[in-house]
């Protein structure tokens, strides 16, 4: 399965991609903001992991646009962000993310969230 990892921090992209490789997912593509992610998203992407605060297009806006596309309506989207107040979490849910990870995170949390969403991705 191919993962699209979206974060404006190159450090975070590497950490997420290394975490994915460690739990057995080595097929990844990365983007530095929502606009770039939209350009790189295609039907081969089976899972999206996105940050919230990014230049040009935020993670929530990217999620909304992706959800409006036929090829992105069902793809699992996991938001990984430093934002963690209740209103933010609700806003992310409304935008269409399937689950939410608060930074800084542990690889265990990432694995749990991906495992929980994978049946949805396979369906």
């Amino acid at each position, binding site marked *: 399965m191919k993962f699209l990892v979206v974060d404006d*921090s190159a*450090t975070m992209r590497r950490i997420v991609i290394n975490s994915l490789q460690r739990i057995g997912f080595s097929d990844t593509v990365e983007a530095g903001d929502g606009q770039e992610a939209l350009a790189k998203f295609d039907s081969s992407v089976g899972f999206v992991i996105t940050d919230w605060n990014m230049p040009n297009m935020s993670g929530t806006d990217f999620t909304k646009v992706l959800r409006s596309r036929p090829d992105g309506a069902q793809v699992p989207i996991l938001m990984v962000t*430093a934002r963690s107040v209740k209103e933010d*979490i*609700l806003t992310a849910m409304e935008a269409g993310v399937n689950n939410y990870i608060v*930074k*800084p995170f542990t690889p265990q949390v990432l694995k749990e969230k991906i495992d929980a969403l994978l049946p949805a991705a396979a369906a």
Partner: protein
Amino acid sequence: MSSSQRAQEVLYESEAALRLVDQELLDLHSVHREEHRAVTAGLADLPYILERANAQILGVLSRLRESRAALQSSAVEKLQVTHEKLREVTSATEDAAINIMDACDRATQLVDELDTIDAASEPDREKAGAVRGTLRDELFLMMGALQFQDITSQQLNHASAVLVEMEHRLMDVAKLFDTNAANEPSPLTMANSVDMSTFDPNATTRDPEGRQALADEIFTAIRGTAA
């Protein structure tokens, strides 16, 4: 109304009052220039005009004191929050450095252990495999500790945005006293415009478990309601 909005309002009121005083002084000046022949009559009115000007000046001074207090209050509040953020940056950096150094120490011990296993006449391959697994865990832990960089960069961007805002407020005050200041470029804004969309003002490295638990609780509750 926030303290910063109040400060801005008071600044505008002060500026309006200063303009009124300017107008009064202009009127007074024109009376003397254009009505030279009516000097005697003008002199009779002078105490009244001076009294009015005095009242206006007192009003302006009062407004300026109020604006100073409002500015001081909002600026101090913002600067205290920024100061706290910068302290957290220092603390997060130190925590990450300590975590990485601890992991380095443990990794070094594991490498020593591997050397000992290799030096044996019959190396225990199974044990060596387990040690390598632990070593990989330690290396991975070091990488995870670097997440502080993303969060502290957001905190520093927030501090930078507060400094730019403070500069704008000081420029607004300067404009009240010197109209030429309005044309002067803003050094901080020119040198470093902060993209507000790239950071969360509340970003923190503290209590990730508690914050994750809140997110999980909300998702579970809302999914339960929707089901």
